């Protein structure tokens, strides 16, 4: 009669009545698996150290500052908080931020969709160049991005003379801010869409073509619905960055209070004027936006995973 091997500490119990040979073999195999599992897994100590470090880092560098923003914002009471948000210059900063987002996000949706479709569905010369260009705003420092536009459109810039002759102001005016923001947030939508489009492949679109659909009908009825979660996710990320962008906008904006100050710029200005609670009040709005973005992101990831899992059960 064969005796089963002793139960390893964490295994599910498969080793109850091991009399027959197959069961014994299975137990031996499980025991071997158990040993190899423990061989590749870290010891509990290492696991807990790593978790503590990650949690500690998140708490110190992320959670505490975030809570502090709200604490500082309410330092002088809720009335002061509310009034500072209603200050005309803060209010125009909020309006400008919203305006910039409302222009640059849809622009980037169009660019992103077009770029993603071209990259995912076609082979063409210059494709890798396009992919590199899309990632360019990520690798360039935002300040450099802003300077780029100053060099192009500033008074001494490349187009400066022409713009001045036609009385068009780009730098130190709203158009410059929109341009800089659009540039900096360009990759978000495209990078979300490219892998999604690549994984769905083009067979569904080809099927639509055989059924008589034009290119546009195919795009609208087949392509777009298949990428909708990736698209919304990309829009949310793009929007969060568009509203929070500081470096590039700081260079091109001119910091004209009430006219070319976006929320991040106004926050900096208020803080430099020693009005910390007002600065934090405005910052708390951005922090709320960040939290909302995170919540939406989590929700969408969950939805996308659900859709993906369903589709996988083919």
């Amino acid at each position, binding site marked *: 009669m064969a005796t089963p091997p002793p139960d390893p500490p964490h295994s599910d119990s498969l080793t109850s009545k091991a009399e027959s040979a197959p069961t014994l073999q299975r137990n031996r195999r499980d025991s071997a698996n158990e040993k190899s599992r423990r061989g590749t897994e870290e010891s509990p100590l290492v696991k807990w150290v790593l978790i503590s470090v990650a949690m500690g880092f998140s708490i110190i560098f992320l959670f505490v500052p975030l809570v502090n923003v709200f604490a500082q914002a309410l330092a002088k009471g809720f009335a002061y908080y509310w009034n500072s948000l209603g200050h005309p210059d803060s209010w125009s900063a909020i309006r400008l931020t919203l305006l910039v987002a409302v222009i640059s996000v849809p622009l980037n949706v169009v660019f992103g969709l077009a770029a993603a479709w071209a990259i995912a569905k076609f082979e063409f010369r210059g494709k890798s160049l396009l992919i590199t260009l899309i990632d360019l705003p990520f690798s360039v420092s935002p300040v450099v991005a802003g300077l780029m536009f100053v060099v192009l459109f500033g008074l001494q810039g490349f187009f400066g003379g022409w713009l001045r002759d036609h009385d068009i102001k780009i730098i130190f005016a709203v158009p410059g801010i929109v341009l800089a923001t659009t540039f900096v947030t360009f990759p978000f939508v495209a990078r979300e869409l490219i892998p999604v489009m690549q994984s*769905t492949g083009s*067979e*569904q679109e*080809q*099927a*639509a*073509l*055989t*059924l*008589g*659909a*034009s290119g546009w*009908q195919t795009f609208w*009825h*087949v392509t777009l*619905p*298949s990428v909708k979660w990736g698209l919304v996710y990309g829009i949310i990320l793009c929007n969060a960055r568009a509203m929070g962008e500081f470096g590039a906008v700081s260079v091109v904006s001119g910091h004209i209070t009430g006219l070319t100050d976006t929320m991040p710029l106004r926050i900096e200005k208020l803080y430099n004027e020693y009005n910390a609670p007002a600065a934090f009040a405005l910052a708390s709005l951005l922090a709320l936006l960040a939290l909302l973005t995170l919540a939406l992101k989590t929700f969408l990831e969950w939805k996308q995973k659900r859709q993906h899992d*369903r*589709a996988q*059960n*083919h």
Partner: protein
Amino acid sequence: MSIELRNVSKAFGGVSAVNNVSFSIQDGELIALLGPSGGGKTTVLRMIAGLEMPSSGDVFIRGQRMNDISVQQRNIGFVFQNYALFKNMTVFKNIAFGLKIKKWKRQEIQERITELLELFGLQGLENRYPHQLSGGQRQRVAIARALAPKPSVLLLDEPFGAVDARSGRNCANGW
């Protein structure tokens, strides 16, 4: 002559997938292209459908030269090897897609779909999504979708692909 290929060749990069193929198919005929995998059968089908353009040679459908005619205008039905059902649409919407494009009236679409659902034994499934169907059901939806707009040519790519070898031979014999 319903379909005719004359000296059709297709090369992808430097690789020749189809090399100087000619054949003709009469109206009402049922033809199977048999051959080893990688032999170019799918490429020939796609060239007839218009999803690929021949590198050289001509494709004729109903006596008309098709080389410059787009996929949409060829009025062929194509059933893909992996069915390529529209994942975000119900069975009903999948089958009705071609009819909606051709701007059929709602009533006509309803009648045609009902007819096809009966023909393929898909009644009761019209509100399901592709991921809620079995493989065989998906195949039937794919065929129904291709047949719905009453095409003059029906092309099926690897229709026995999901079937094991012996059954496949039996299917081919029964076909």
